[in-house]
């Protein structure tokens, strides 16, 4: 028990003194997940908007696959990217395995289905309400998509936050394609796994606290956005 209390104290000290090793890991995690979420948002908005508006054969299938991929296990995403980027794989020449870029790619694969599926749902709900009015106004399909994305902006923000929450917390994908290399690809989650198994509980605990705080902050932001949207009758 004293061991745990000591570790907890050390963890708090690491955070309070902005320990360089801790900060490096936190910043890399944030950088990877934020870039992944930006890329996934651009793809997800376009894909979700298009799926809501265009009618084509196989649309139901695509929608179902997208929903299923929302629950894609991170290790599987990691495995897929690993196979693509490994020396024997089709993209092996890029030499991206065990780099932050590989981790971003893996997280984009994880997060895009979440943002795309939530975007599609938001746009479809709006389209049900707007369809006749927009067609009466003579809107083209692309103009309709633009209108839906803008009018669904608060729901899209919550989709992005949900995607970020998933990216920052996952460990399987970044572990496989990043390799948890010190100073290069060590993220909060992979570091926690490693340091815990090494018995360095203090650092693991410090990272865990930071991760929790981020999760709480994302959740608070989600609730704030929702409340704001409801107040303007934009929900």
């Amino acid at each position, binding site marked *: 028990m004293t061991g745990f209390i000591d570790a907890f104290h050390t963890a708090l000290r690491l955070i309070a003194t902005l320990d360089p090793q801790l900060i490096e890991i936190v910043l890399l995690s944030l950088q990877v997940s934020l870039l992944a979420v930006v890329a996934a948002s651009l793809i997800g908005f376009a894909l979700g908007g298009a799926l809501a508006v265009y009618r084509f054969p196989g649309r139901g299938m695509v929608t179902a696959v997208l929903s299923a991929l929302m629950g894609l296990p991170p290790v599987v995403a990691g495995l897929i990217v690993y196979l693509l980027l490994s020396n024997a794989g089709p993209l092996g020449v890029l030499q991206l395995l065990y780099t932050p870029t590989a981790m971003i790619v893996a997280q984009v694969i994880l997060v895009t289905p979440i943002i795309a599926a939530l975007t599609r749902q938001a746009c479809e709900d709006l389209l049900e309400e707007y369809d*006749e009015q927009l067609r*009466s106004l*003579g*809107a083209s399909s692309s*103009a309709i998509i633009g209108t839906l994305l*803008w009018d669904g902006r608060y729901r899209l923000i919550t989709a992005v936050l949900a995607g970020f929450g998933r990216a920052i917390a996952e460990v399987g994908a970044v572990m496989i394609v990043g390799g948890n290399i010190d100073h290069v690809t060590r993220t909060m989650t992979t570091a926690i796994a490693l340091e815990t198994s090494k018995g360095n509980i203090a650092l693991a605990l410090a990272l865990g606290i930071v991760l929790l705080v981020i999760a709480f902050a994302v959740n608070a932001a989600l609730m704030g956005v929702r409340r704001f949207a409801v107040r*303007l009758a934009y929900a």
Partner: protein
Amino acid sequence: MLDPTVPPGGLKAALDGVRPLLPLELRRLTYAASGKRVIDRLDLTVEERGITAIMGPNGAGKSVLLRLMHGLIAPTSGEILWAGKRMDRELARRQAMVFQKPVLLRRSAAGNIWHALGLRGIDRGERAIRVDGALKLAGLERLASMPARVLSGGEQQRLCLARALSLEPDVLFLDEPTASLDPASTLAIEGLLIAAQHRGIKVVVVTHDVGQARRLAQDVVFLHHGRVTEHEEAKSFFASPHSEPARAFLAGGLVL
């Protein structure tokens, strides 16, 4: 009958020097949904002037007829001709519609009109002028920056009408625009419609408010079971309706 001084094709079209839009002719128009004919071999000619009211009991097909005219849905069979031509993009751009339940985007009141003008490809300078003009016309200028969806029901419908009028349509369709509004809001909407008609805009309004039809319409189309049972000058329609369903409807009876 018709005012001989009104040129064919509609007053506004004539003033604007563009090809005529009216009269609107429907020929043996049929619209079936899940095997049932909502509109059943309907023939109708809507003339270029004034306000035309489409009346009839619930389920007569009034809203469907309006959507067919405006091109929102395609007929199962039959023809819709605008001055002898089928609907195309250019003709569609000269029409606007106001729905029973106001459909407003999640933007400010002004933003809603701005967006609609943008969809019609109107440049930004002209857009700003028209947004101001439309808000003023509808008496909404003080609410310009308010989120549209927190406005009252009456204000929302006035905004929808202002948005439609900002497009400067030649033909304006309205589907029971005042069905759920209080008398003051209804009066405001009717005033805007009469003013629009004086500017040469053809107005086609679905209503089952007899008082509203009396106040607004020059001619009345009475619809029953997807067919026109009569199409008369308003005066003679209200004085002596010919068809049995219309007589019962005006007498306040239940028309099945």
